C-alpha cells in the first residue's frame, strides 16, 4: 500500500494514493489507519456504485442499440440521469413484504447479498498501487467471500414463500454450486504458474512483453485461454446473467427469487448482481488478462488503473452483448454443461498447465512442440467433450410435401 519511489512522470499513477494520504494527513496518527481504510472503502463504494448506476444505463442503451433503438435518452442529457431517477423511484417505492413470508430473512437476504458481493473488491488490484488489502491467500479469500452469495439468494427465495421464488431458490442453489467448481478449477492453473495466491503477485507474474508488444498475460497461452473461457462461462453463471439467468427466468418463473421484492430491496439485488459481475470480471482481468498491465510497453504511460478499467469494461460489455444474444439454457442442460463439460475440461487444463510449467525450459524447435502439445491438450478434449455434450442436437434438413 505504501507508495514506492515515485518517478516524477508517474504522478497520475499515484494521484489517488496521494490524495488519500493528503486527506488522512490532517488526522491524528491513531485515527489514520481507520481513515485510510474508510477512504479506501468509500472510494470503492463510490466508484463501483457509480459504475453500477451507469452499467445499468449502459446495459439498457447497448441492449437498445443492439435491438435497433436508442434506449433511455430523455432523463437528463442523453439519459445520463436515468439511473438516478430509477434510484429515487426505488427509494420511495413502498416495500411490500408478504404476510406469509419470513420477515427477518426477507430483509436480510438483499443486505447480505450486497455486503458479500462487495467483499470481493478488497483484494482486486485496480492499479499498480491500488489494492485495498494484500493477502497471502487473496484469491481464496475472493472466492470464499463469493461462496456465501448463494446462501443469500436461497434466503431470498425461501423467505418469500412464493412458489416461483422457491423454485428459483432451488435452481439458484444447484446452479451456483455447479458453477462454483469450474470457477475454482479454472484459476488453479494460474496459481500453478504464478506460484502464489496473492493477486498482486499474480499480476506481477504477467508483467513484461515479448518484443515490447506481446504481453505475457496468461490468456495468451493455450491453458490460459482455456482457463479464461471456462472462468468467464462460470462467472456468467455465478452472476446469474443470461444465458444462465435461470433463477430469475422471466418467461418461466416470473421474477424468480425476486418475485416478492419491491422498492429498494429489489434495487439492492440488482446492485448485488452488478457488483458481483464487476468483481468476477475484475478477478478475471487480474488472473488472466494481466490485471493493470498495459498491453504493450509503449502504452505504459497511461495509468495502470485506466488499463484495468478498460479491460473490466470490455469484459462487462461482453456480458451485455451475450445477454442480448443468447437464449437461456434449461436446468438440466445447465448442470450438464457444468459437470460434464466445464469440470472435466478444467481438470484436464490442470494437466496442460502442469505440462506448460514443466516445459518452461524448452526453447527453439521444442518451443513449437510445447505449443502444439498444449494446444492439442486444450482443443482435443474440447472437441470430444463438446461433441458428447451436443449429441443429438444438430441443424436439420427439411422435406416438402409432394403435392
Amino acid at each position, binding site marked *: 500500500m505504501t507508495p514506492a519511489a515515485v518517478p516524477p512522470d508517474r504522478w497520475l499513477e499515484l494521484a489517488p494514493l496521494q490524495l488519500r494520504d493528503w486527506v488522512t494527513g490532517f488526522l491524528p496518527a491513531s485515527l489514520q489507519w481507520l481513515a485510510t481504510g474508510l477512504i479506501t472503502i468509500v472510494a470503492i463504494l463510490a466508484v463501483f456504485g457509480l459504475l453500477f448506476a451507469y452499467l445499468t444505463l449502459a446495459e439498457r442503451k447497448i441492449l437498445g442499440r443492439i*435491438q435497433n433503438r436508442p434506449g433511455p435518452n430523455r432523463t437528463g442529457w442523453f439519459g445520463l440521469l436515468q439511473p438516478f431517477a430509477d434510484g429515487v423511484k426505488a427509494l420511495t417505492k413502498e416495500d411490500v413484504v408478504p404476510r406469509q413470508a419470513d420477515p427477518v430473512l426477507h430483509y436480510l437476504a438483499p443486505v447480505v447479498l450486497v455486503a458479500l458481493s462487495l467483499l470481493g473488491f478488497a483484494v482486486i488490484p485496480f492499479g499498480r498501487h491500488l489494492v485495498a488489502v494484500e493477502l497471502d491467500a487473496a484469491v481464496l479469500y475472493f472466492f470464499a467471500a463469493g461462496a456465501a452469495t448463494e446462501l443469500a439468494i436461497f434466503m431470498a427465495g425461501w423467505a418469500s414463500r412464493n412458489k416461483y421464488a422457491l423454485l428459483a431458490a432451488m435452481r439458484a442453489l444447484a446452479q451456483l454450486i455447479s458453477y462454483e467448481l469450474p470457477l475454482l478449477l479454472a484459476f488453479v492453473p494460474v496459481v500453478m504458474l504464478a506460484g502464489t495466491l496473492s493477486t498482486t503477485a499474480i499480476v506481477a507474474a504477467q508483467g513484461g512483453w515479448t518484443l515490447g508488444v506481446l504481453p505475457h498475460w496468461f490468456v495468451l497461452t493455450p491453458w490460459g485461454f482455456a482457463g479464461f473461457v471456462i472462468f468467464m462461462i462460470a462467472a456468467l453463471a455465478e452472476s446469474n446473467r443470461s*444465458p444462465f439467468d435461470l433463477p430469475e427466468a422471466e*418467461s418461466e418463473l416470473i421474477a424468480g427469487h425476486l418475485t416478492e421484492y419491491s422498492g429498494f430491496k429489489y434495487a439492492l439485488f440488482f446492485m448485488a448482481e452488478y457488483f458481483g459481475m464487476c468483481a468476477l470480471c475484475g478477478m478475471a482481468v487480474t488472473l488472466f488478462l494481466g490485471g493493470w498491465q498495459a498491453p504493450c510497453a509503449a502504452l505504459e504511460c497511461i495509468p495502470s488503473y485506466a488499463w484495468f478499467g478498460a479491460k473490466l469494461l470490455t469484459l462487462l460489455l461482453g456480458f451485455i452483448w451475450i*445477454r442480448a444474444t443468447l437464449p437461456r439454457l434449461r436446468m438440466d442442460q445447465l448442470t450438464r454443461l457444468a459437470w460434464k463439460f466445464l469440470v472435466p475440461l478444467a481438470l484436464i487444463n490442470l494437466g496442460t498447465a502442469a505440462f506448460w510449467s514443466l516445459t518452461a525450459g524448452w526453447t527453439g524447435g521444442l518451443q513449437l512442440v510445447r505449443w502444439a502439445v498444449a494446444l492439442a491438450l486444450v482443443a482435443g478434449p474440447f472437441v470430444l467433450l463438446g461433441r458428447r455434450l451436443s449429441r443429438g442436437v444438430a441443424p436439420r434438413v427439411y422435406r416438402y410435401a409432394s403435392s
Partner: protein
Amino acid sequence: MSAPDSSFLAPPAGSQVRAVHDEFHGDLLEVSMGPHHPSTHGVFRMIVTLDGETIVKLKPVFGYLHRNHEKLGENTSYLASMPYTDRLDYLNSMTNNWAYALAVERLAGLAVPARAEYLRVILAELTRLLNHSCLAGFLLQDCGCSGTPLMYAFREREKILDLFESLSGSRMMCNFQRFGGCRVDPSADWLAGVQQLTDGYGAFLDEFEALLTGNEIFMARTQGVGRLAAPLAISAGVTGPVLRASGVAHDLRKVDGYGAYPQFDFRVPLGDHGDTYDRYMVRILEMRESIQILRQALARLPDGPIMDPKAKLRGFRPKAGEAYGRIEGPKGEIGFYLISDGSPNPYRYRVRPPSFINLTILEDLCLGHTVADAVIILGSVDIVLGEVDR
C-alpha cells in the same frame, strides 16, 4: 404413435399422476402459470403440477378473454361482424377477414373478381410473414433471449404494418375485406412497397436465422421437446404449421385450393420429428415460400374491379341456409360457420379457432417436460388469446 387408436385418443388422465409419482420424490407442487404470466401470451392459464420441475399434470384454463364474439356476431349485421373478426386473432386481421368473407360468399353465392383474389393472397401472405416472424420472436423470447429476436421481428412487422396502414387505414384492425371483394384498390405505390418488402424479407430471414436457428442453446432447448405424433395431431384437429411439423402434408391452400392459390407455385415444408424445433423451422420455411407466392402474385396481379358488382354493403340479407368456409390462416385452419335465416343478422355465427383447437394437445406435449419446456411448447403452438377465448 404405435399404440392402438383408443389409447392415444384419450386425454391423459390426471388421476394417474399419483400412481406414477414415486412417494420418495417429494411433494408435488401445484403452480398456476397465468393468467398473468409473462410467457402465456396473454391471459391464458395453465395449472401445472410439478414433481421437482417436471410436469406431471397440466390443465389449461380458458375464458379470461372470452369476449362473446359469437354472441355479438349473432346480434349484429353481417357487415358489422367484419371489424370484430379483426379482433379475433389480432395479429392476423387480414386472414380472419378473408375467412369470414369466404364463408359469407359461400353462404350468399358471391363471386370475387380476380384482382381481389390476388390482392387477398398478397395480404394473406403478408399476414403470414407477419405472424410467423412475430411467433418466432415470441418463441425465442420465451426461450430467454432478452428481446432481441422479438425486436428484429417487430422491426419487420412495422414495415408490413405500414403497408397495411397505408392500404386499409389501420395498423392492426384492417377491416379490409368485403363480401365479394376488397374495400380499397391498392395504388401502384403500394404495390411497389410490397415488392420492396418482398425483396428485402429474405435478407431479414437470413439474419434472423443466423441469429438463432443454428444456435446450439436454441437447438438444445427445442429439439426433442414437445413431440407431437401425426395420428394424435390429426385426431385432435390440430392444423396449420403445428400439424405440418408432425409430418402431415395438409395445407388448405393446396387441399382446398381456395382463392387464387392454385395459380401459384409453392411448396409445403414438413417436419419429421414434430418437436418444437420443427414447428419453428416449418414456419421459417413457410415464410420463404410466402415470399415466393408474393413475388408471383405481384408479377401477375391482374387488372379489373375489386368488388363483385352484386355485393351490397347495406341491407345485406343472404338467403336462409348455412355455410362453412375455411382458409389456411397462419395459425391453422380458421373457419367460419354461418347459419342464415334470411334476416340481416346471422342466425348462428361460429368461429373455428385454430389456436383453441391446437391447444387440445397441450397437456400431451408437456407431460414429462419441465416448466421451461412447457413455456416454449406453448410458444411453439402459437396461440392468440383473442382467438382461443373469442
